[in-house]
């Protein structure tokens, strides 16, 4: 099964803009709204390369999945994990940015088969966007977090099932499954459940477990991978993931970030993200 190659999204542009709004949406996630030069459109699963402009620019932009676009307003969800995301958080409204977008191959539009959405951590935005655009009641949507407080509940409609490794209280009043998101899916779709197409986005262990589940059941599975990126548009070969079938690599930014799980060599897949 192929991620959309013939994406209907327009070719990417490098747009200037400013930070319009920045706000916490959970204990660890923040929403960033950009106001860009021109209206933007995208397909769920695509991303942008975002950088501050001027003196505070980073050497490389940072890849962020696209959550929503409306006119010239573009929205992301992000977590502060290092220097770049800290600088974004501290930049403040009005800070000038540059944004190369939309990039990469999206999750395909649905066919008649039900989808199993598996989203963890910063893997949420593309699947929230997908569900918003294309979700149907028969699709199963699962979002996982560390303690439940880190899930942006305001953005997860009632259709979403939640899990947490170590569930805290129940601030959102919604039941949270204790375990990871793939365990949640297994509990809801025991052996013999009808076939689902898996769409997974999150840290590597989640993708690995999702691919494992799909493999077991003989389901199709699409995963969106995360790799450190330099360019985001295919020229630097910095963002590679191991390709199945030969011992070569595919780029996360241009061949992906969405891949058929069978197109990747999971044995060689690891490194820093595996921790």
């Amino acid at each position: 099964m192929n991620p959309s190659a013939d994406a209907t999204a327009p070719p990417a542009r490098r747009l200037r803009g400013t930070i319009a709004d920045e706000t916490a949406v959970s204990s660890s996630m923040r929403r960033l709204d950009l106001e860009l030069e021109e209206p933007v459109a995208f397909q769920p699963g695509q991303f942008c390369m975002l950088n501050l402009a001027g003196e505070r620019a980073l050497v490389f932009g940072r890849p962020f999945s696209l959550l929503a676009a409306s006119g010239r307003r573009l929205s992301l969800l992000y977590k502060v994990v290092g220097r770049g995301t800290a600088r974004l958080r501290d930049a403040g409204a009005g800070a000038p940015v540059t944004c190369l977008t939309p990039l990469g191959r999206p999750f395909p539009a649905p066919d008649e088969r039900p989808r199993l959405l598996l989203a963890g951590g910063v893997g949420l935005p593309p699947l929230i966007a997908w569900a918003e655009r294309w979700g149907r009641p028969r699709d199963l949507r699962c979002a996982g977090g560390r303690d439940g407080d880190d899930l942006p509940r305001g953005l997860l409609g009632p259709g979403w099932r939640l899990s947490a490794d170590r569930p805290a209280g129940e601030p959102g009043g919604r039941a949270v499954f204790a375990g990871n998101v793939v365990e949640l899916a297994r509990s809801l779709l025991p052996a013999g459940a009808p076939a689902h197409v898996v769409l997974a986005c999150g840290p590597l262990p989640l993708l690995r477990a999702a691919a494992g589940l799909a493999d077991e059941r003989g389901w199709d599975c699409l995963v969106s991978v995360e790799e450190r990126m330099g360019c985001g548009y295919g020229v630097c070969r910095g963002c590679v993931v191991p390709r199945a079938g030969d011992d070569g690599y595919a780029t996360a930014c241009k061949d992906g970030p969405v891949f058929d799980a069978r197109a990747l060599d999971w044995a060689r897949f690891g490194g820093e993200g595996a921790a």
Partner: protein
Amino acid sequence: MTKLPDWLAFDPRGPLRLGPRTFPGRIWTASGCFGYGLDGADLGTAGGGSPFDGLGAVVTKTVTPQARRGNPPPRLWETAHGALNSIGLENVGLARFADEIVPVLEARGVPFVASLAATRPEEFGDLARRLAAAAAGAAHWHGVELNLSCPNVAEGGVDFGRDPETVERCVAAAREHLAGRALLAKLTPNVGSIARLAAAAARGGADGVTAINTLIGMDVDLRTGEPVLPRRRGGYSGPALLPVALARVDEIVQETGLPVVGVGGVATLEDALKFFAVGAVAVQVGTAQMSDPFAAAAVAAALAAAG
């Protein structure tokens, strides 16, 4: 910058004559930082335009006799003031480059310089011969840049390019097959005297040299105490490099008078003008081209607009 400084010894807005070729401009992209000159063609800005507008040349990703899969990830690491890379010369190999990429560049009218690397002088000759045969009629193929300085491959690589005699032999081997094309040798800064390497390249028949390739650099992940790159050390590029690149270009120009294509840390017209000030005949944009596909085109546009 709305006016070109009056101390410029030449008008950098004009075309560049280098050996047997005339390049349409003096702002180029650096090898490995803009792929094979294919990606990015469909990118735009709010004002329209293309990343290729006004470029004097795209130096394509280095190709080797055989395809290479490169190093395992992570291959790229941002440091506070630059970037480390350890791509490991992943490339499609000369055959696919000549058969599949050159025709597209030619059809699109992209002025390009092919970057070649090998591990023995004869191989450089072989690469040049094969490319010259395959691309004989390519009007937009202006020349070859011999990458004698990649720090990220185990065999050959930077050590190889530190010996003046080897440099001379590699250049001479390629020169033989490249009548009518400009020939540049790309030199490493991880050496005592870069001018000696440049002089050796000239003896081998180079029309000029490109300086500099990356410095050797490293970073450590404080959570693990381990190098961030699986191969420990990699190539250091980006803004931090600019003063080093300027000094190395200056050294070559002052000591040899050869035409030098400057590269290292260039992101703006001001940066480029510093290279012209020390005598560079053209300038390449590398790391900056990765973070903004329009970086080189913007420098070229600013240069063209300067009165």
